[in-house]
């Protein structure tokens, strides 16, 4: 636990706390010498207590000016959650509807549907870390892995903007994998791929991807937003059709994912409702114990020092009220208050 000050320069006022040792807060009296009063232990004690209280009041006030705080810190907690790397297709076709048309009237594009349900998903997962990667012709790092929910939400809000270019899924996957911090324990790691099509992955990149997947071991979910009439994941080649990645990219991407030896599931959604179901299913599946870091924000301690200062000052005020005119008390004999003057 460490402490800090908002404006440390205020501490230059601290020597003022020594002033009570030199001067008394009590009135001058017409007695010419302190030696006139007899020494007594109680008076000395009261005098010193008042000095110390005054020093304390000044010191605490100075500290309140400086703005003391306890540093925020990160503590590890256990809960349910995961590190989720979201990989979103931003190719131009994502802006079409599930029927493959430009959205008209109340229709919703694939990107808008994905945006709506993904925002819900992010809001529901309280402890997860999210990273967002987009891909079209090239992979684009949108938001590195973070626990700032507002930042992740802002990144997902941007996914239904006009897309660009083509679908280069291989490089996108490589960048989504790079979202996970290197080394460390293999925790609950998830890649959520949202795309409306697949593409051939360059064989050179395939090998590299295989190695990366083996190293990082994420669970992979592929949310395939299928345009009606388009080829699906489980489509077998028709008679006379070649069974190549070029002809059936979805089927071959699925086969590639299955061959990776990691937890993998594909969801084929042909409409907004199916997207919602798929996301709810992923939410249900990814409930593994997860060690996450919670940041305890810095705690302001100004009030504490103000309380100390106010308390010490009130005692001084009470002492001032106990102070009496020397002329009256002189007749009554040496009271502690009288002797206190000696301070």
């Amino acid at each position: 636990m460490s402490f800090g000050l908002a404006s440390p320069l205020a501490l230059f006022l601290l020597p003022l706390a020594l002033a009570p040792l030199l001067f008394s807060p009590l009135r001058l009296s017409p007695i010419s010498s302190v030696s006139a009063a007899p020494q007594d232990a109680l008076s000395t004690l009261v005098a010193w207590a008042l000095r110390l209280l005054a020093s304390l009041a000044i010191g605490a006030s100075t500290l309140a000016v400086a703005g003391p705080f306890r540093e925020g810190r990160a503590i590890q907690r256990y809960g349910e959650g995961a590190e989720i790397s979201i990989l979103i297709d931003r190719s131009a076709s994502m802006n079409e509807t599930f029927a493959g048309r430009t959205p008209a009237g109340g229709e919703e594009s694939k990107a808008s549907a994905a945006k709506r349900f993904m925002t819900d998903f992010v809001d529901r997962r309280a402890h997860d870390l999210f990273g967002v990667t987009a891909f079209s012709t090239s992979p684009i790092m949108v938001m590195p892995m973070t626990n700032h929910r507002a930042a992740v939400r802002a990144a997902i809000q941007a996914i239904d903007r006009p897309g660009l270019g083509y679908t280069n899924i291989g490089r996108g996957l490589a960048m989504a994998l790079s979202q996970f911090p290197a080394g460390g324990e293999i925790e609950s790691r998830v890649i959520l791929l949202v795309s409306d099509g697949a593409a051939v992955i360059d064989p050179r990149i395939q090998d590299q991807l295989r190695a990366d997947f083996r190293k990082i071991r994420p669970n992979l979910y592929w949310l395939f937003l299928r345009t009606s009439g388009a080829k699906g994941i489980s489509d077998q080649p028709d008679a006379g059709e070649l069974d190549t990645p070029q002809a059936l990219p979805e089927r071959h991407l699925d086969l590639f994912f299955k061959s990776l030896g990691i937890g993998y599931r594909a969801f084929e959604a042909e409409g907004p409702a199916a997207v919602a179901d798929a996301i709810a299913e992923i939410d249900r599946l990814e409930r593994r114990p997860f060690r996450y870091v919670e940041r305890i924000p810095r705690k302001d301690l100004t009030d504490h020092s103000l309380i100390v200062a106010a308390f010490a000052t009130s005692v001084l005020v009470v002492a001032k009220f106990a102070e009496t005119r020397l002329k009256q008390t002189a007749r009554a004999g040496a009271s502690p208050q009288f002797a206190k003057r000696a301070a």
Partner: protein
Amino acid sequence: MIARLRDARFLSLAFALAMLVAAFAFPRAEVVRNGADVLATLDITGSMNTRDYSLDGAPASRIEFAKQALRRLVADLPCPSRVGLAIFTEREPFLLFEPIDVCENFAALDAAIGTLDWRMAWEGDSRISAGLFRAVEMARRTGADLLFITDGQEAPPLPAYGAPVFDGQRGEISGLILGAGGYEPAPIPKFDDRGRETGFFGVDEVPHESRFGLPPPDAEQREGYNPRNAPFGGEMRAGTEHLSSVREPYLRQLAETTGLGYAHLEKPDGLASALLAVARPRPSLAPFDLRPAFAAAALVGFASLYLIVPLAEIFTRRRHSRLATTRSRRIE
């Protein structure tokens, strides 16, 4: 009681206590603070890789330098400010994320700016004016001001009939065009398709003239000119498009067209004040901590109690005694 009220020490102490109590009663006030909403758009096209800046003594590309400036901007903006990020290549700005609060999401913003890279570019072209106009439109839709960082080098060069026409409303969006790059032409690094640097662009590797649209009026004087077969002249003209410097007059002209401000990116800091000078202020109420001020006032009370009043008394006593001695001397 009246005697106490006449006692300067009691008054000082009472004042100090009153200030400490007031600190609990009125701990904070609301003040209006002006922040800014900014959509920062960074040009990540090839010419932005030119290394004509230096960071910590090492040569740095325009993108690296601009990233450093953006990180400083995020750190320097006053608190109710929001920053969104977009990258630009070809003719399209690509929105990475909508503006988010800089103070709450500082770490996320800083990391996101740190990962910007020319490798995110999905096309090689760099049509600055088209990109700028679309970025203005994007800023208008997100309701933010625009910060557009570019070196102003159109690739391929603009055709003879000039830049596309700005169809937005001039001055509707405020903001800043930030010219990146030095004034001296510098070679542009070249990369292969796996992202490895392979040298610099040569004079014969880039187009120096656009051959779209109508030929320029002086084409008839060119060698090998033929109205049908070679309307632009017989040979490709060699220019200096393989070298890059900040195209300041062009960017100033674009700033004039769109109603944005223009500034040259010279050092990584100071961007926040330049931007706040042109950005629309976004006033919002922010709490202002009054407690340190009250505590300081209490300290004034204590200083009066323990220093000023006792010292004043000592001085008056000395003067009195000195007066008394001189008077007694006179009597003698």
